[in-house]
């Protein structure tokens, strides 16, 4: 009789999610390994002599500078100034973009009325608006915040709209069939169901906000902040090591922010297929 052949698939060890602690530890360790590899590669490039060390200092040196900067009160002050603008800008953005996204994602009319305006405004780069922002808001935190809000609005808005359009109609019908009105359905079905996707938007926005904050400081020479600090270190002191150290700190900030957001997501959105502890067949 016919001989059945088995797929020559190696036994893929299904990672036990039972010991959540140990699984978390493995993934942290793996992440560290990844970062270490990144720095080793960067060190090799900077030592390879492709570029003069005077201009591209060795990564190890930059890391030493990074360590020094972390205890430099002047530098920390600059970082805090940036973070403050970041936090305010992102909060405003989330409130505005999510509520706008919910309205536009659930109403056809509002969606079509806004589309042309949005599509037109969205690609206008915040950097092109810097002089105007300075004009209207002055050269300090308000200007940065305005630019942050303007540029982070879009990822959150779009992910919210997409998320709202992606809700399973049966779920919406269910709520309606139990007498929930449009608004209630919106809050109790559409919003939770779109939440993971909105959250991805927020994660994108969180780093865009950081980028815009630092860029605005760097390009507009804002009066305070990490970007201003980098500008000074580069332009008046010719200290590329310090500039790169500050760049690394910008990256580390992003990593930390993302870490916090992931924790929040695990805590509140653990029902998603991707995060289920015993995902059926998810490997």
């Amino acid at each position, binding site marked *: 009789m016919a001989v059945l052949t088995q797929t020559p698939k190696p036994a893929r060890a299904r990672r036990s999610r039972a010991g959540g602690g140990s699984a978390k530890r493995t993934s942290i360790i793996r992440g560290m390994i990844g970062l270490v590899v990144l720095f080793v590669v960067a060190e090799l490039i900077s030592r390879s002599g492709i570029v003069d060390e005077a201009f591209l200092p060795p990564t190890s040196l930059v890391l030493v500078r990074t360590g020094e900067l972390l205890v430099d009160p002047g530098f920390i002050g600059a970082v805090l100034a940036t973070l403050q603008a970041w936090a305010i800008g992102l909060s405003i953005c989330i409130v505005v973009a999510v509520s706008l996204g919910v309205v536009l994602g659930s109403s056809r009319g509002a969606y079509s009325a806004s589309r042309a305006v949005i599509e037109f405004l969205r690609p206008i780069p915040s950097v092109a608006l810097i002089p105007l922002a300075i004009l209207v808001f002055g050269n300090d935190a308000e200007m940065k915040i305005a630019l942050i809000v303007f540029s982070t609005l879009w990822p959150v808005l779009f992910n919210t709209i997409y998320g709202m359009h992606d809700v*399973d109609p*049966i*779920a919406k*019908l*269910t*709520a*309606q*069939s*139990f*007498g929930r009105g449009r608004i209630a359905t919106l809050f*109790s*079905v559409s919003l*939770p*169901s779109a*939440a993971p996707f909105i959250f991805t938007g927020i994660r994108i926005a969180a780093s865009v906000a950081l980028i815009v904050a630092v860029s605005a400081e760097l390009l507009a020479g804002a009066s305070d902040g990490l970007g201003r600090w980098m500008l000074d270190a580069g332009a008046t002191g010719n200290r590329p090591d310090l500039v790169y150290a500050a760049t690394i700190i910008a990256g580390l900030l992003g990593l930390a922010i993302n870490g916090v957001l992931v924790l929040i997501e695990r805590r509140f*959105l653990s*029902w*998603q*297929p991707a995060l*289920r502890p*015993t995902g*059926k067949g998810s490997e």
Partner: protein
Amino acid sequence: MTITTTATDLLTIEGLGHVYEGRQRHEAIGRLDFTVPEGAFISIVGPSGCGKTTMLRCLSGLMKPTRGTVLLQGEPVLGVPRDLALVFQDYSRSLFPWRTVAGNIAFVLPRRGLTAAERKARIDESLDAVGLTGSADKYPWQLSGGMQQRVAIARALAYRPKILLMDEPFASVDAQTRAELEDLMLAVRERFSMTILFVTHDIDESVYLADRVLVLSKSPSTIVATIDVDLPRPRDQVSTRELDQFVQLRSGIARMIRDQSTRRPTATASTDAAA
């Protein structure tokens, strides 16, 4: 309790028809006219794809039919009427994955007018009725298919609707549980004086539960037969099913459905097969 024509009509369906538009236009419902008296238990049977789900959607106001009207106590149904609940055929998708079983049920309870203790009691009671006492804190995706289906039923029961529409609600449960759920439906119907429309593929079940069975033709569907079921109540899983009348009714309906399913032209006349 048998239904007489003098009872008030809760729902009046007149010339109902539905066509799914789109590139492939499909006429799902041809023309349906019937009434649902208050407190009635009506079973609906018909070949797969004949438009039963479509019909329930139209009755519940979730979908606007392309033709005809649905009147609830004489008023046209525009939105979903208060006090109406629907158990979806696609139960697994109608449960909210971000809420636990208890959370899914709590979701449909009215926000006001219930104390916390009452809410809890309702949830426990309805879970108990469908045999899921221990699963209140699980998520839907941690349950088996049949258990999910029972959660959907429990949710509808906890809502205590006046009109309950059920779309093949027992398709995924075992025979024994099914029998228990059938009796549960009869009991809650009495207790809360609900009006129930019940779509099923199980002909025995349709007869066992109902005051009246509607047999639909295949798509575009029309009513092939309206069969009043005069079996005595209270009904009993063993003795009722042994009645001659029951056996007659079910084989009559089975024959009609067979006629519909096989690929012969649709029967035209609406006949009263029994009673």
